[in-house]
């Protein structure tokens, strides 16, 4: 690009539109917010009003007690992620947003599964649990509770495996994520 006054010209055909783009993949937004009342309501309200669908959302403290971190996962196939982050940025209590690059991120969620299992099936369920590096945290005569940590994909794969035994209940925290390397998330 030339300096002002130079004659190099631009043709309109060269211009490409930016923004409002669907990336088609899952996004993990790591959002630092001021730890003040109502902040979560502002964020969830914003998502509801603008028709942004949250897949998972988890909130927790950070090393700074004035600041909380909210990790949001959402689908970039149905949402213009740049519009989501720009709208979030407009909230005064939102300090920083990072759209984490999947390959540069470690993401985990915790899930608890209560699976129907009696003496006939318990061994098999426990074997699956072992393969997924899960932990049995409670056993009764007719059920078993298993704790799994991992990526969403892993948790979902585990769910598919145990569902046929009879999934009594399942609880998931939603993902939290942290950037690889020395820099801050």
């Amino acid at each position, binding site marked *: 690009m030339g300096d002002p006054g130079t004659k190099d010209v631009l043709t309109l055909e060269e211009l490409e539109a930016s923004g409002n783009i669907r990336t088609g993949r899952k996004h993990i937004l790591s959002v630092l917010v001021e730890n003040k009342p*109502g902040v979560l309501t502002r964020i969830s309200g914003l998502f509801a009003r603008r028709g942004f669908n949250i897949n998972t959302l988890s909130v927790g403290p950070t090393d700074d007690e004035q600041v909380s971190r909210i990790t949001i996962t959402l689908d970039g196939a149905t949402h213009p992620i740049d519009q989501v982050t720009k709208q979030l940025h407009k909230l005064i209590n939102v300090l920083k947003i990072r759209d984490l690059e999947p390959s540069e991120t470690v993401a985990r969620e915790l899930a608890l599964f209560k699976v129907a299992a009696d003496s006939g099936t318990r061994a098999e369920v426990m074997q699956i649990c072992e393969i997924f590096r899960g932990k049995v945290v409670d056993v009764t005569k007719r059920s078993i509770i298993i704790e799994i940590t991992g990526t969403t994909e892993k948790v979902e794969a585990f769910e598919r495996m145990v569902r046929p035994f009879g999934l009594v209940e399942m609880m998931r925290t939603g993902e939290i994520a942290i950037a690889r390397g020395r820099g801050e998330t």
Partner: protein
Amino acid sequence: MRAVDAVVECLKAEGVDVVFGLPGGANIPTYDAFYDGGIRHILVRHEAGGGHAAEGYAKATGRVGVSLGTSGPGATNLITPIMDAMMDSVPVVFITGQVGTHLLGTDGFQEADIIGITMPAVKHSIMIQHPNEIPRALHEAFHIARTGRPGPVVVDIPTDLSRADIPYEPITDVHLPGYQTFTEGNTKQIRQAAKALAAARRPVIYGGGGVINANASEEFRAFCRSDRFPVTQTLMGLGAFPAPDPQWLGMLGMHGTRAANYAMDEADLICCVGARFDDRITAKLSEFAPRAKFIHIDVDPAEISKNVPAHIPIVGDAKNVLAKLLAEYEALDTDSSRLDEWWQRIAGWQKQYPIEKSFTDSEDTEIKPQRLIQAVYEATGGDAIITSDVGQHQMWTAQHYHFNEPRRWINSGGLGTMGFGLPAAMGAAIGCPDKTVVCITGDGSFQMNTQELATCAQEGIPVKVIISNNGYLGMVRQWQELFWEKRYSQVDLGKYPDFVKLAEAYGCHGVRLTDKTTLVDDLKAAIATPGPVVVDVSVTREENTYPMIPSGSAARDMVG
């Protein structure tokens, strides 16, 4: 110092000279401070009136408006003005009373979670939790309301906290780590925009309310005139570029001119300044300006590429960006004659469809509503501050009153709030005491905040209300006529009330006009009458606002 006295001190430090409100139990402490605090308080008759008055004040002066209400119903009455200020980016600080902290969450008498209720309608809101926070919260509220893209901020003060004694020290700086404004505009992008403009053969400059909010009319005009760029503006932008003017295409959008809408439709480059590609502008989005590339200048990054993807996004304050864009454009070697063909095409539309020909005037004494607006323009010499309500009269005013300066046209664009006009006029008149302020309203809209006539009478606020009286909720009737087989459902207002008597009952001067032949002189006389005046003008009952892009249609399919 009492916390409430600190409130008054903070407002003074922010340069506030007037506030609009109405007291109640929870904010009696605040009102005690206003008793002799040294800031003018206008006692409105409904909190919504106060909220819109604060908006009118802000829009006319460019300063932050202030509106007060008590807890519960006082606060909920403010919801419409808050939302209105959000939609039109109006800087207003709303200070609400709240029940005492010991009652919060108990459904106490007159408790309403106004912070919760207004969350989607505010730029920001602050619930006071400790009395010592009050001064800082107020300064933050003003800072947020005024800067960046302006907007409403609500500060909710529980009554017990407002009675506390606090150590008050003037605050000179606010620090908001999560609040950033982008004012300068990226130089590279601005240069790119200048080049794109130089390359364009069918450019259109499309300005919005942001130009006025940024006080950038002068820069906007200079930039538009740096070449023979055709200029159009949204409803909110009127006045930033003078009408009439050889480069002026008229208003854009649903009831805009054909020249403006057709030019957008055929443009190869659209330079949007401080507007947001609202559906009233784009009409059918998928067919909006199909051949155009877009430069989008806005202070709010979230507006860029929200509805229409931008090719050259520029985030910044219009005043700064336009000055730089002008310099960049002037440094280029451009040839105005490249626009000849474009102007020929535009001139054809202008000639064929001038706005004056959008209606046929009566041949007898009947007053056509469009003629009424022309007459108001003549009677005021085009030099008044005009507020309006919502409906046909609003569109006719936008079309036929030619605004040639910014902050002369005050209306509710984004929310379309009936009842906005009178209180907004009140606020404008208080903010600009040397100007004639005229509220052009409809018989329907006017009744949504008529009570403020009492405020005008008591305070001697000399607004001139002109009612375009068609006995209908006219704009709705028009839609029912055009798209619902004339099934007029619940739009006939009859001949009620008698607006002249009503005006008199409120202590205002009232007149009724029915004769076209003496209209301009009669209006002049009414406007020259001191104090608040209500002019009830009987207009053609079933007149339609044209031209029009029917909703769901594309701009090139305008009718009427």
